[in-house]
């Protein structure tokens, strides 16, 4: 099975640390990338792959179109993160690179489990597997105070949210006696009075608190900017993509598989959370000068846009969410890859460090520009079509339900887009039109870095211009969720 091979790969990497000489550790990463590539291909087809749909372990573990979509997303993201880590390896502590790789792989295993979890136990275990490896990944630059500080912050808030979540799961189990998502929804359908009991609703709410922490939605977003800024850049990328996507797949499963009857009543709550998350992220990003911190706030805003798809409470909303997420992977990867390469020699990630980038490396300058433009949602890039689908889903629900809150949500999302133009274009301006660039030495790109940047660029354009294939996949996944 895919998950077992991934854990095996992590263990092999850990062992490889003992045998491979220090100066060749970089290649351990490339070996891991090749192995993951093989896993990605085999996961698509063949016997026992996750292309085979069904459930396992008494319904705890499910393979469907949704889990398949997310598993492929996670593996692609991790491959790109490993490329980035290989570029970043010289900034990590001496001799610990292979450890870093294996931690990433373990987090990947957690995400793969999350994609397939169909039970609250599974949900908790996979989330803990992800979060605990991230505690280490965030504070991996042991000599850097900021990284340690970020790690401590993440640890404290993460532990708090985990405890909320356990408490919530306990309440759900206490009131219903069910942990499996499918059984729970059957139980609720048969006992509608439980679905309205205060204790049960509190339990669901507390689980949502835990998941809200993972996706950095308001009001659990406080950690994101600090941790994004302090963490090593590959960790930031992984956090922004993997951890967030894992949070979203679990959120979708809980809301639409486990407690659909409750979700239907919480439309207004979801609308408000989504709207505030969008506005908070975008408004707070305006004054930021640190690029990673800016991306931290921007990721909060992006979580808000993704929540539009959840709030729409429809298959087209879920499909739009998945679509947006796929575009988001490549966009954020591209942006943080450039940050990794450009800021490698600099002490901080101030926006001023981008000055003269178009002369130092036109490819990197163009990549960061395209990533920013895509995040802002301008055609013909991935972000535009994703936002278009999300807006369409929201307005569709508005017309179907007659809930005027959805129209307001659509307008707030648009206001967010307009606000975001300001700071995204600020980054672009820093690249091309800074006053006096201090350093004009060209930036050397290794060929793996060049390759992965091109992969990101092709992904951004492909998803933006040829939406057909991906949209069919996300539609299938959304159908699987609503089965």
């Amino acid at each position, binding site marked *: 099975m895919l998950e077992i091979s991934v854990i095996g790969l992590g263990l092999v990497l850990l062992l490889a640390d003992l045998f491979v000489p220090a100066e060749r550790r970089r290649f351990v990463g490339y070996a891991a990338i090749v192995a993951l590539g093989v896993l990605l291909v085999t996961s698509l087809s063949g016997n026992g792959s996750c292309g085979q749909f069904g459930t396992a372990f008494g319904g705890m573990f499910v393979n469907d179109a949704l889990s398949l979509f997310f598993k492929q997303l996670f593996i692609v993201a991790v491959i790109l993160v490993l490329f980035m880590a290989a570029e970043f390896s010289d900034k990590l502590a001496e001799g610990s690179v292979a450890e870093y790789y294996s931690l990433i792989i373990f987090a990947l295993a957690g995400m793969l489990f999350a994609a397939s979890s169909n039970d609250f136990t599974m949900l908790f275990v996979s989330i803990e597997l992800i979060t605990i490896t991230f505690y280490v990944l965030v504070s991996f630059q042991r000599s850097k105070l900021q990284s340690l500080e970020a790690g401590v912050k993440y640890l404290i808030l993460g532990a708090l949210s985990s405890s909320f979540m356990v408490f919530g799961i306990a309440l759900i189990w206490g009131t219903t006696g069910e942990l499996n998502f499918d059984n729970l929804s059957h139980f609720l359908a048969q006992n509608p009075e439980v679905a309205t009991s205060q204790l049960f609703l509190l339990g669901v709410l507390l689980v949502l608190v835990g998941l809200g922490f993972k996706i950095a939605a308001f009001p659990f977003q406080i950690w994101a900017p600090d941790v994004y800024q302090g963490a090593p850049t590959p960790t930031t990328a992984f956090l922004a993509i993997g951890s967030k996507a894992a949070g979203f797949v679990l959120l979708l499963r809980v809301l639409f598989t486990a407690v659909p009857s409750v979700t239907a009543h919480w439309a207004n709550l979801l609308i408000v959370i989504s709207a505030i998350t969008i506005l908070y992220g975008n408004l707070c990003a305006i004054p930021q000068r640190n690029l990673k911190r800016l991306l931290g706030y921007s990721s909060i805003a992006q979580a808000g846009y993704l929540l539009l798809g959840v709030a729409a409470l429809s298959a087209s909303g879920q499909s739009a969410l998945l679509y947006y997420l796929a575009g988001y992977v490549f966009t954020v990867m591209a942006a943080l890859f450039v940050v990794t390469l450009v800021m490698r020699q600099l002490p901080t990630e101030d926006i001023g460090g981008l000055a003269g980038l178009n002369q130092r490396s036109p490819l990197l300058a163009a990549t960061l520009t395209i990533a920013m433009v895509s995040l802002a949602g301008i*055609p013909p890039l991935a972000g535009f079509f994703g936002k278009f689908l999300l807006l369409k889903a929201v307005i569709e629900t508005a*017309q179907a339900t007659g809930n005027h809150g959805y129209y307001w949500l659509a307008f707030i999302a*648009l206001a967010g887009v*307009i606000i975001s133009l300001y700071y995204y*274009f600020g980054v672009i301006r820093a690249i091309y039109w800074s006053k006096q660039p201090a350093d004009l030495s060209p930036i050397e790109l290794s060929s793996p870095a060049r390759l992965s940047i091109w992969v990101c660029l092709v992904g951004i354009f492909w998803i933006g211009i040829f939406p057909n294939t991906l949209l069919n996949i996300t539609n299938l996944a959304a159908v699987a969720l609503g089965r």
Partner: protein
Amino acid sequence: MSILTYIAGWPLLAALALIVVPRNYRVIIRAIAVLATLISAVLAVKMFCQFIPGANGFQFEQQISWVESLGISYHVGVDGLNVGLILMGAIVAFAAALCSWEIQTREKEFYILLLVMTGGILGAFASLDLFFFYFLHELALVPTFIMIGVWGRGEKKNYATFQITLYLSIGALIALIGLIALYLQSGANTFDIPKIIEHAKTNPLAVNAQNFIFPLLLFGFGILVSLWPFHSWAPLGYGVAPSPTAMLHAGVLKKFGLYGLIRIALPLLPQAAQSWAHVIAWLCVGNILYVGWVAMRQKDLNLLIGNSSVAHMGFIFLGIASLNLIGVTGAVLIMVAHGFLAALTFALSGYIYKQTGTLQISELGGLCRKLPFIGTALLMAAMAGCGLPGFANFWGEATVFFGAWKMFPAITVIALWGALVIGGIYMTRAIRNILHGPLPEKWDLLSDASNVWRKLPYALLLVSLLVFGFVPKLLTEKINPDAQKIVTMVMSQGSTAAPAVVISAPLTSSVLADVASAKAPAAGALPETVSIGNRQLAIENK
């Protein structure tokens, strides 16, 4: 492949090609841009000539399915409404590429953006799919902001960039919500405009949905077109923009919102269009009268042109609001004519700015002596702006007034006054102060457009204005049948149709005949102006 795909595709392809050209090959970069827009313009002329007026349905159609599950397809085609706009857009783009010699820094990026803008806007006009219609417009809009922000001039550059970005993004996004709501509400489950219209004939949209969507489109598109009171971005933005950008935006891109109203909002939201018509009519008084007055007070030539361009939008809105054949035909006619005119005036003011470094009217004077060609062209542009017969604008404004009279006599009177008196005052005053009078000593070294290439863009735009001024039939015979279809759709579903409008239907043909017969004497009535212009042109060409 439809010829339309080539018209919009060549500039985009050239933009891609420019990415790989090294930045020091300036001549090659420029040649590629000019060549690509030239090919587009030639193809557009060819398409315009091959267009069969009054043929049923769309011509030069092409459809490629894009996203089946949403019903999005790449669908282009022309009918009488957009054939003239595409021709105008392609010619203006060519002129703008020629005028871009004034850009001296970062030329490569500038030409790439210019070509993307050209391809986007031509594609948007050709597009018959709601999604691509919006998508390509947005593709053209973003380069505008960057071009103003980077190559703009003057101290207010950053403020103007900020303002125009904010206004136009808001406008575009409001329109986007309207378009999505329209798509969902129509129930046709396709973004294909002809199919939605076909579907709406049998299943018209509910009136309350119409009344919700129409204002979204009206104000969304209205912001893009600088409808009063959302116009304040326009004069300043154009004042700061480099002239090729101002030419393309004021001339072509701005017409997108108007075209969207006519193509999409009127046929699909007929009842709402009728109930909102008087609102549009009163708002356009703001454009014509208020902005006209503002224009009178301007001391800077570009601000004056910018305000006058906003004022001209009022006539187009008035034509749309009149909701009858003559009014809508006139609106489309002005859209084409104003495209040439706005491009011409911004090109000329750009030339003067490049030469003198200022556009303050008080500092200029007597320029006609040093710049006979540019001066004459500016004079003719000003005359066209006042709506003098012989230029294409006259026909547009005249038909709009004929059309609007039946619906809004009071407003038409105000608008006429605004067009003839106010427009006349600020235009002639500017001409007097800039071109005539004593020549300040500091301008002794000015040089006129020196060779054919430099003169070509101005001459081309002037000739286009004159051609459609003398033979407006070229356009009206194409616009008429399709405007008729739109108007029929609005009226057939109108429950609140005013009696005056119903009477207007049989009258339309006779009034058009009047207008057409008035053409001959009007053209003869002003031989002086025209021949002066021609003589001047002839002298310059020696």
